[in-house]
C-alpha cells in the first residue's frame, strides 16, 4: 500500500471559517479517492491563522520559528497540496500570500496542487484563475484544472449533493490523478545539502553570471 501525504493549507481568518470548511471537504474527498485507489493517506492541516505571527517574524528575521518550520516542512514535503484562501480585494488574502512568500521558491516545483477559495459573492470566483493559479504557476507547481470556489449560495444549497459537491469531487479526482502519477514524496528538500564539489565550483560552472 502506497503511503501518501496531503497538506491542507487554509488561510481563513475567522473561527469557524468557511474557508476551512471548504478545505476540509476538499481534503476528505481527495483522501477518500486516494484510499479507494489503494493508498493510505496522512493529512496535515495547516491553519495559517495559528502561524500568522510566525509568518511575519519569518519575513523580518529570515528564518521560520520552530512551529512554522514544522508546518512548512509538512507542506513542502507532501505528495499533494490543497490550498484554500478567502478572496479579499480581488485576490488571495495577505496571510495566504505571505505563507507562500516565505517558502523557498523551488520547494513546490512539480507538486500537485488543488486550489480553492471562498468569498461573499460568486462574482469573486475568477480570482482563483487570475490570482491564485498564476502564483502557483510561478512556483512551477502543477495546479489541477478544476479550481473550487464556494459562495454563500453554495453552502445554502447544502453540501451533500449540490453543484459544489460535484466540483469538489471533480477537483479531488484530478488531484488524486496527479499524485498517483508521481513516486511518493521524499520529504522536504535539505537546504544544507552540498550539490557540487569544490573543483567544480572553481571551474566556475556554466550558470555563473559574469559581472
Amino acid at each position: 500500500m502506497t503511503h501518501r501525504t496531503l497538506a491542507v493549507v487554509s488561510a481563513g481568518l475567522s473561527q469557524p471559517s468557511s474557508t476551512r470548511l471548504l478545505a476540509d471537504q476538499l481534503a476528505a474527498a481527495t483522501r477518500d479517492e486516494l484510499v479507494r485507489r489503494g493508498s493510505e493517506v496522512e493529512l496535515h492541516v495547516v491553519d495559517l491563522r495559528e502561524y500568522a505571527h510566525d509568518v511575519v517574524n519569518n519575513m523580518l528575521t529570515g528564518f521560520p520559528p520552530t512551529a512554522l518550520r514544522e508546518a512548512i516542512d509538512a507542506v513542502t514535503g507532501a505528495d499533494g497540496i490543497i490550498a484554500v484562501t478567502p478572496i479579499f480585494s480581488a485576490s488571495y488574502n495577505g496571510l495566504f500570500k505571505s505563507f507562500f512568500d516565505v517558502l523557498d521558491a523551488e520547494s513546490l516545483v512539480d507538486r500537485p496542487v488543488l486550489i480553492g477559495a471562498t468569498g461573499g459573492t460568486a462574482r469573486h470566483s475568477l480570482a482563483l484563475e487570475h490570482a491564485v493559479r498564476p502564483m502557483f504557476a510561478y512556483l512551477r507547481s502543477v495546479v489541477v484544472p478544476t479550481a473550487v470556489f464556494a459562495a454563500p449560495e453554495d453552502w445554502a444549497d447544502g453540501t451533500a449533493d449540490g453543484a459544489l459537491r460535484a466540483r469538489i469531487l471533480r477537483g479531488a479526482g484530478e488531484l488524486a490523478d496527479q499524485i498517483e502519477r508521481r513516486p511518493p514524496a521524499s520529504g522536504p528538500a535539505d537546504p544544507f545539502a552540498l550539490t557540487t564539489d569544490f573543483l567544480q565550483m572553481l571551474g566556475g560552472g556554466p550558470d555563473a553570471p559574469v559581472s
Partner: protein
Amino acid sequence: MQFGVFTVGDVTVDPTTGREPTEHERIKAMVAIALKAEEVGLDVFAAGEHHNPPFVPSSPTTMLGHIAARTERLLLSTATTLITTNDPVKIAEDYAMLQHLSDGRVDLMMGRGNTGPVYPWFGKDIRAGIPLAIENYDLLHRLWREDVVDWKGKYRTPLQSFTSTPRPLDGVPPFVWHGSIRSPEIAEQAAYYGDGFFANHIFWPKEHTQRMVELYRQRYAHYGHGTADQAIVGLGGQVFMRRNSQDAVREFRPYFDNAPVYGHGPSLEEFTRETPLTVGSPQQVIDRTLGFREYVGDYQRQLFLMDHAGLPLKTVLEQLDLLGEEVVPVLRKEFAALRPAHVPEAPTHASMVAAAGGAKDSTVHAVDDVTGKAPEVTR
C-alpha cells in the same frame, strides 16, 4: 580556545534616549572596545567591513592597524572581509602590511556580504556572489604563497608576473576563516583549503550552525587535512548580562525590540529560544555557551557580539568586564577540560611559523635592471 568580540560597527539610535552617536563617536567607541578586550583578557577583536550607512567600518586595515599600535597581545581579525567586492590583490597587500605592523597578530574571516546594492558600487553582481568568493579567494591564496603570479580569471583583469608586496611576515600567510550562515558552498571552500570555518551563529537558529559545521568537518576530513574533529571551527554568539538575570532582561529589552535585523519582530523570549541569544546572568551565559559544544563539537574560537543596536559604550564596556572577569575564565577552564588532546587550538602566527619549520624572510627584491635577474618563483 580563543575568546573575543566581533562588531559590525553600526550607528544606531539608543532607543532609551533617542540619541544617535556620530560616526566619529562610533569609530572611537570601536577602538575603545578593542582596547578593553585586551585589558580584560580576551584574545580576539574582529571588525566588520561595510560600505553603506548605518555602518562605519569601511576601512578595516586602517582601524586594525591603529588598534595594533595600541595593543600588545590582542589578535586582530575581521567579521567579515568582503571577498566578493574587494580586489583580492588589495586584500593580499593590505593584510600582509597589517601582519607586519602587528607582528603577526592578524587573521581574517572571509564573507560575501549580502547587500545587493553594494556589489555594483564595486563593479560586481550579487548573483555571482558565490563564484566571486571562490575565484577571488583562490587568487588571494596564491598571492600569499607564490612570489610571482600569472593569473587569468573571470572577474578581474589578468595578472602577469605580479608580486604582491609586502610578502607575508616570516613567509607565513595570515590564517583565514570562511564565514557563512547557510551556504554549504562556503563550508566546502573552507574544507578544501584546510582553512577555518566560522558559523555566524547569531540571529539564526542553531540548526543552521549545526548542519554547516557538520558538513565542513566531514569535507575537511575528505580533503585530507585531518580528522573531522580536528577541523578549525569558530562560532559567534550574542549575550547581554547583568548579575541578576531579571535586570539583564529589563535593560536589554528596549534595545532588542528596536534593533536592526530582528527588531519589531519576535519577542525577546521567542528569539532567545529560537537563536543562541542569551540575556541573563553570567552563569546563564556560561551554561548556554558550554552547550554550543554539544552540537558543533570541540571548537577553537568563540566571538561575542556585544555592541550593536545602540547600546551605549559605557554599557558595552561593563559587559566586557563581566565577560572577561566572570565568564571567559570559567569557559576557558571548562572547554579545556573537555577537549581531547588530538583536537588542535586555532592556528596563530607563532604556531604556523613553527609548523613551517621556523621563520624565514620572504622579501622579494626588485628585478635588477642591469642583469635582468627576476625574482624566483618559490612555489
